[in-house]
């Protein structure tokens, strides 16, 4: 490789561009984190950049004292886990039979899925359906409509059909049924792709906002995104006791909102570095399918 002076300057320019891009990614979060940790006077006199000025944890004291906030967070954690488990079960149940090329009616079922990738009823027919099913203000409204992603299902189907057939054939000859084969042979061979798809479902559920805005008006069932929306966009006040209330009344809305944003983002930031690898694998699996 060349190591001339030109090449070194080139390297330097590239490093600077990448460093700048990384900063652009981080600064919004650093800034909001700093606002959440800075004193009122520092925020008002606009002395806060990307580190806290006159460090204080008051805004977090208020956010953590707000039981509805904690409840939303816990609810969203449980919702995400339940949704992901159910989605994966349904996706596997569909992908496995459809990966069998000899299955009668396979093309019909596949067509049925592919059509939904091109055409959908839309927001209002979906809403009427949920209403008619009696799911308004029920957890089910946040779980059932999105259970199977056609894209994820097809990715998994393609993966299953690329597994060597010989493994299953010998098990079939030994008298095993398809359930045994699926659980004992196919799934253990598919753990990486299963992990990836679970993560896609989980992150999608965690971040999705529209369905809760449409279907949920009972604040006990607010997922964290809807809760955050109410705080930041509709200036919803925290529900807290008198003691924290006195702290809260002295706080700027900015720092309270900033702390709420951090409260909703930190869970993602905590798990993200460990999960990132699986996502990158996942996008590759998807793109091979094309």
């Amino acid at each position: 490789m060349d190591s001339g002076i030109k090449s070194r300057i080139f390297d330097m320019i590239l490093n600077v561009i990448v460093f700048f891009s990384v900063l652009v990614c981080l600064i919004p979060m650093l800034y909001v984190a700093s606002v959440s940790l800075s004193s009122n006077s520092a925020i008002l006199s606009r002395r806060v950049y990307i580190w806290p000025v006159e460090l204080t944890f008051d805004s977090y004291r208020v956010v953590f004292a707000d039981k509805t906030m904690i409840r939303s967070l816990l609810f969203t954690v449980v919702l995400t886990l339940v949704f992901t488990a159910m989605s994966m079960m349904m996706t596997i149940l569909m992908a496995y039979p459809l990966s069998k090329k000899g299955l009668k009616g396979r093309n019909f079922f596949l067509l049925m899925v592919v059509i939904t990738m091109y055409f959908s009823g839309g927001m209002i027919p979906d809403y009427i359906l949920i209403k008619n099913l009696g799911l308004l203000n029920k957890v089910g409204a946040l779980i059932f409509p999105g259970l199977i992603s056609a894209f994820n299902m097809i990715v998994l189907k393609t993966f299953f059909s690329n597994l060597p057939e010989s493994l299953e054939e010998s098990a079939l000859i030994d008298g095993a049924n398809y359930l045994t084969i699926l659980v004992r042979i196919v799934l253990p061979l598919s753990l990486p792709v299963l992990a990836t798809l679970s993560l896609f479902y989980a992150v999608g559920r965690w971040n999705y906002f529209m369905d809760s805005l449409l279907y949920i008006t009972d604040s006990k069932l607010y997922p964290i995104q809807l809760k955050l929306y109410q705080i930041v966009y509709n200036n919803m006040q925290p529900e807290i006791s008198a003691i924290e209330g006195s702290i809260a009344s002295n706080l700027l809305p900015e720092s309270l909102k900033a702390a709420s944003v951090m409260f909703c983002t930190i869970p993602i930031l905590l798990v993200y570095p460990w999960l990132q690898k699986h996502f990158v694998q996942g996008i590759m699996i998807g793109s091979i399918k094309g």
Partner: protein
Amino acid sequence: MRRNYLLYLFLVLPVAYFFIFKYVPMYGVTIAFKDYNMFLGIWKSPWNNFATFKEIFSMKEFFRAVKNTFFLNTLDLVAGFPAPIILAIILSELRNQTYKRISQTILYLPHFLSWIVIGSLTIQLFSAQSGLVNTLIEKLGFEPIPFLTEKTPWIITYTLSGVWQSAGWNAIIYLAAIAGINPELYEAATVDGAGRLRRIWHITLPCIKTTIIILLILNVGRIAQIGFDRPYAMGNYLVTDVSDVISTFVYRVGLRSGRFSTATAVGFFQSVVGMVFLITANYIAEKLGEQGIW
């Protein structure tokens, strides 16, 4: 053959899911052609002879929403499509692998934030009274820019939020394409005396051309479609003129004002136009994918 019954048993629940949650709403689209009455239900509501469509085609707000949808999506394409390609080329040229890996991890991160979080970050960062960006602009002696409350600045903020959210993540696919290029090509070019810029221009870009073109076609295919979370989280009533897109319009007309038939007709219009774009684009992309490009 007899053993296949288990496979069909597996399919029962998923097929029921698709029937109830995907195909029943497709039937529900018929309310766009009816005077929907909640108490009569979809089936018994009377047909209205395309009155709903005549209504929406006479609504100024409908055309505004269609125009905004295409306009914002086009800007997304113009700004958001090249960004990941450039980023991927730059990242692939980095020599320090640790630096590259850490940068990638951080650059993918915005993709995992919800639009409500990104919208909140945007408000805090760009607000005219207290946002960091305007603090800096004023420190430099300029007038603050109303990023969120005036049309043109808002459009720019919206477009950049898309680049910010997805450029890193969308670079992955190009990085993979670049990683698949035969290294001998680069070695041969080096022997011939090509500098690094020339190698990017004459080897990297031609080698990932197919990927670029197919992704471009697929992206153009989605130009009539728009999600709800992003325009809803980024928009506000001061910029409705440019921020109201089909999805937010459907929400407002349908669920806020309760005009279900009208809103469904708007959604149906979008679905059909979107489907035409999508099918055409997928068809072309598939053809190109089979033949290779030029």
